[in-house]
């Protein structure tokens, strides 16, 4: 057995806890989780059934941690997990799972399948079966500070543009600010207007904020790929900057996995609680709205719908904030049939958008979202995750469906109460 396979299997063993063992033992193979997964519904291929994606991990558990399985293994009645098998499963564990969490919500016996797939990725990556696209993104995150290879100079150039466009300063490394704001590479490269939007909102609401030159990137590809050491290093970068600047809170940008990584998994990765609070940008905006510090003086009046980013809503628990904000700024909000915690994924979360070989499958999986969007009749889709946005924009281009995507933060910035209207 190769050293990397042995390492991977060791990770599998470490990932087994009471939760996972209980879930494996409880599964009745009813197949209902398949109907919850967009990779199954859009392809109707049974191998995309969520619980099946865990088969090698389940067999390792059964062979090594159960009496019957150990006897079967000793008698040679069950095969050990092999490298070839893990290679076959790479597509199932990565390309066809966005860690969206929907399967975990429908399993009748209560299995949290997503929780297990997330843990299984640790072993897959250690054994060397993570997809090359994700490996590259993670390497760039460590070496260059961002998964897309965005460097500080690029950010500084975007800051200059946005300062010119808004006439407002965008603070960097300001000690004692209330909030350290993070960005995602996707935003810096594809939607830099987000920076200007933030500057305008924070200026109007009187929020003291800063960016950090050594921790501006929020995306944690270490978590997506499943390498705890790298995930820890990426989280630690933010924690160090936040504590150096003495901020009260760190604001995760419009990016689902970044929020999940920093808010929910980060403390476990670094082994201690933070000394600051972590908020998704929508949570902060909704808080400001509640305090009467965020007001709009015009509204978006065309039909608009909202795509719930899985990691922000179902996995992250930020369900009401986007709706409160959207109602404030738009007059014709049309919810998709299954929305909120029951939303359907865009097809590109969990690092899938960085996996080149998964493109065809991803476009197919988008069929679910496409149907949902079209059923609302809205031609504008607001969302709160730069990754969802880019994934959907690409798919919309591909299928030529004529729908516009907009970040909710930007939408609010565009309708923000101005100085004149405020005093007038």
């Amino acid at each position, binding site marked *: 057995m190769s050293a990397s396979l042995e390492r991977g299997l060791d990770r599998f063993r470490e990932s*087994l*806890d*009471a*939760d*996972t*063992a*209980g*879930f494996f*033992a*409880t*599964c*009745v*193979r*009813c*197949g*209902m989780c*398949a*109907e*919850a997964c967009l990779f*199954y519904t859009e392809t*109707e291929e*049974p*191998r995309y*059934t969520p*619980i*099946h994606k865990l088969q090698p991990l389940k067999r390792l558990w059964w062979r090594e*941690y*159960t*009496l*019957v399985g150990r006897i079967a293994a000793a008698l040679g009645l069950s095969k050990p997990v092999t490298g070839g098998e893990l290679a076959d499963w790479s597509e199932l564990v990565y390309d066809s799972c966005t860690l969206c969490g929907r399967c*975990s*919500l*429908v*399993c*009748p*016996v*209560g*299995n*949290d399948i997503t*929780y297990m797939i997330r843990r299984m990725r640790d072993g897959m990556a250690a054994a060397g079966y993570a997809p090359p696209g994700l490996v590259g993104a993670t390497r760039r995150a460590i070496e260059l500070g961002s998964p897309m290879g965005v460097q500080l100079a690029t950010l500084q150039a975007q800051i200059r543009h946005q300062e010119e466009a808004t006439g407002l300063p965008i603070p960097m490394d300001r000690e004692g600010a209330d909030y350290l704001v993070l960005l995602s590479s996707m935003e810096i490269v594809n939607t830099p207007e987000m920076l200007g939007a933030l500057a305008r909102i924070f200026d109007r609401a009187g929020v003291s904020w800063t960016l950090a030159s050594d921790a501006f990137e929020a995306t944690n590809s270490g978590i997506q790929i499943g390498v705890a050491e790298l995930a820890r290093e990426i989280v630690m970068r933010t924690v160090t900057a936040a504590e150096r600047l003495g901020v009260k809170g760190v604001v995760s940008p419009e990016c689902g996995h970044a929020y999940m990584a920093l*808010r*929910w*998994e*980060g*403390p*476990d990765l670094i*082994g*201690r*609680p933070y000394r600051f*609070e972590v908020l998704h940008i929508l949570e902060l905006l909704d808080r400001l709205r509640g305090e009467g510090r965020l007001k709009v003086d015009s509204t978006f009046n065309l039909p608009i719908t909202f795509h719930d980013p899985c990691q922000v809503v*179902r*996995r*992250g*628990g930020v*369900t009401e904030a986007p709706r409160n904000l959207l109602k404030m700024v738009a007059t014709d909000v049309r919810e998709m049939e*299954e929305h909120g*915690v*029951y939303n359907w994924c865009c097809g590109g979360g969990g690092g899938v958008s960085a996996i080149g070989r998964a493109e065809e499958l991803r476009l197919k999986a988008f069929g679910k979202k496409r149907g949902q969007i079209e059923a609302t009749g809205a031609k504008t889709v607001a969302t709160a995750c730069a990754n969802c946005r880019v994934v959907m924009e690409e798919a919309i281009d591909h299928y030529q469906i004529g729908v516009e995507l907009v970040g909710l933060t930007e939408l609010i910035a565009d309708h923000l109460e101005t100085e004149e209207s405020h005093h007038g």
Partner: protein
Amino acid sequence: MSAASIAFLAWVRGPGFHIALGLFCLGLVWRLIEIYALGRDRPLAPLRRRSGASGWWTILRRSRPSAEHESMVSYLAGYTFHIGLIVTFFFFTPHIELLRRAVGLSWPSLPTALVDGLAVVTLLALGVMLASRLLDPVKRFLSVAEDYVAWGLTLAPVLTGYLCFHHLLLPYTTMLALHLASVEVLMVLMPFTKLIHFVTLFPSRWMNGEHFGRTGVAA
């Protein structure tokens, strides 16, 4: 009535039952330790809600059908045979009588005709479950031999019980002995098959609800 079937009945009523009960308890304890001794980590991130309480809610909530309409066959037949099993087992007069004599505990029974009808419905629902396992592409793909064994183990007590009550197929004593034997085999194997979900379902749902509850999501 043959001497052999009387001896068989006496054995399944006496020593057989005690052995089965002992193995059932041992097996169950072994399995629960095997599974839950692995332990779980406490998250360090500040919780948005008391997640343990969410777990209890999920135990209840997960009993209602999800939004996936495609799974309606599984839901309908699934509910029917589970309810059928529980009612025929706990509310059939002879079963209650047996328990009263054994441990002195009893409760009101349901009319025998009703329980009898329910047994037929349960058998039909189990038939539907088997058909769907064989015909549904996902279920067929996921299925292993154990699924068919578990199906047989579940069906046998209901079927033999029904045949026994109606004095069908075999002499009453023989069928009664087979009925008891089928229950005993079920007891012995239950902890070691997926049928263990009759207990692990509760901790699994709780843990799922607890995971989601950390972020404030009602699962």
